[in-house]
């Protein structure tokens, strides 16, 4: 009797072991991207754009072409690539410092132009690679390397809600916020990524998938505690759900 293989590395992913910290969600999201592209048979027609941040080496884990952009500029770089190679799936993979602080102009205008790209936004409320500084998405009261007394909304404002902001624009066709903190949410996150890539393949327009993630290392928590904290503290501020779905793909 032959064994049926039911789980394998996605074809569009390399055998390179992840460099991410134990418990980090980057590896999980990378895998969901790989599975989604495989299932849509897009693995050899995709170009990724890596950010500055923990996922700067995202290109090590995928077999397709990659550009490594400057901090915050991935949506502009992806714009240039997509305009030259419209037959390719082009996606950016960005953290919250990258996308919601230094790259705010680039993300808003790429979305507003309706660039036919997919932006995957990893929101873990903190700067990872530089050592746990306050991000634009850091929760009020949250202690970080640069908010040792806790984020003071009077001094630093409130956490910025990118999915809600981008959903106010005319051009984006799909804006959603997911998490990978439970098996059920993970399945929803994968569906969202597939929706986004499929919409791009069909040339429908700009798609945005925000993934609320944990950063055990810089939060100073075990992965289990971090997931608990995410559910209790982050999700009330960053509610999961689809904020814009012009073509009704979430229902389909």
């Amino acid at each position: 009797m032959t064994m049926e293989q039911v789980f394998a590395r996605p074809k569009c992913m390399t055998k390179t072991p992840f460099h991410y910290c134990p418990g980090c969600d980057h590896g999980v999201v990378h895998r969901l991207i790989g599975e989604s592209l495989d299932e849509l048979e897009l693995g050899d027609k995709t170009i990724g754009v890596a950010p500055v941040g923990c996922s700067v080496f995202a290109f090590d884990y995928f077999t397709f072409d990659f550009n490594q952009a400057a901090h915050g500029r991935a949506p502009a770089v992806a714009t240039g690539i997509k305009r030259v190679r419209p037959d390719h799936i082009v996606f950016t993979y960005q953290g919250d410092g990258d996308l919601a602080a230094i790259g705010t102009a680039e993300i808003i205008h790429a979305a507003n132009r309706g660039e036919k790209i997919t932006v995957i936004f990893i929101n873990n409320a903190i700067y990872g690679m530089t050592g746990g500084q306050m991000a634009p998405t850091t929760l009020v009261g949250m202690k970080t390397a640069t908010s040792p007394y806790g984020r003071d909304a009077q001094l630093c404002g409130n956490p910025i809600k990118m999915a809600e902001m981008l959903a106010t624009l005319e051009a984006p066709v799909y804006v959603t916020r997911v998490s990978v903190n439970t098996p059920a949410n993970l399945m929803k996150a994968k569906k969202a990524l597939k929706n986004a890539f499929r919409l791009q393949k069909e040339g429908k327009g700009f798609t945005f998938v925000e993934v609320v993630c944990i950063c055990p290392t810089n939060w100073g928590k075990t992965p289990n505690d971090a997931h608990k904290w995410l559910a209790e503290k982050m999700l009330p501020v960053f509610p999961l759900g689809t904020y814009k779905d012009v073509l009704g793909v979430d229902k389909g």
Partner: protein
Amino acid sequence: MADKVLMKGNEVIGEAAVLAGCRYYFGYPITPQSEIPAYLSRRLPEVEGVFLQAESEVAAINMVYGAASAGARVMTSSSSPGVSLKQEGLSYIAGAELPCVVVNVVRGGPGLGNISPAQSDYWQATRGGGHGDYRTLVLAPNSVQEIADMTIAAFELADRFRNPVLLLVDGILGQMMEPVQLPAPLSYDLNQKPWALGNPNRKGGRNLCSTIFLDVEQLEEHNWHLYQKYQVVTDEFAKGAYQHLAVETHAVDDAEIILVGYGIISRILKTVVEKARKRGIKAGLVRPKTLWPFPSQVLADLAARTKQFLVVEMSCGQMVEDVKLAVNGRKPVFFFGRTGGTVPSDFEILNEVDKLVRPD
């Protein structure tokens, strides 16, 4: 041969880019270069190209980074304050060894300065401007015809050396209208660069465009690799492979004083040479057409024959340092400059020449 047409310098940059096979332009409005994006916003759709007005110069240069990595001939343009904003992207583009053309129609600085013509971005253009060990080729035309020819040459040099090429044009040349004979169009195939992202004509494996080398030995190796490429560029220019682009000399053979200037200043200096000679002063002119690599050897050779040099710039003195390095103390090198958007007259430069040649 096409007939000559009367065109503005900035518009010729746009048309020559199209003739060079450039089909992608990303830019942001700023005076005195705004005719370039205006022209290309009309022209590129006619040839199925992409014109995109970016949200900032920072975004524009990063769109160039993306498009260049995907194999396109691509250009952006700006004026001084906007070119400062592009330096981040230029460093990445140089580090990733991507070809592109960046136009700077130079205006007065520092800061917002003014919109009048200047040459005060020489250091930024020739020394890199952004962070890290890198070089960019810099071409400096002095007429609308040369703008056409050098724009096309810029694209070819960029592809030849996989490096950004800057076209340094002062505000006068950008705004000036002159007759120009437009060159024949070049053909360009998007898939001719096997290293480009998304290119089906690759040599196997995947293509990666990156500038990160965390391992210090790898980064050192990469930096020396870039350095060796810049040496090849310098050597090829020094050996005369790009003689038509490198330098122009005028009346230098018997010259006792050699004037040195680039861009629009060189045309004023030509008048100064004629007027000086009518006064019995043996003056000559050296005009660097390419600012990096700098035509040092020509100046070094002349240092053995002439008595002195006078460098004239629309700045407080930037290129003069390169002239001093080339002359290397063998003869005195003097400087005369006007800055802040003012243009020196032939009369005031002639006075300087007079003072140097007849000190009493």
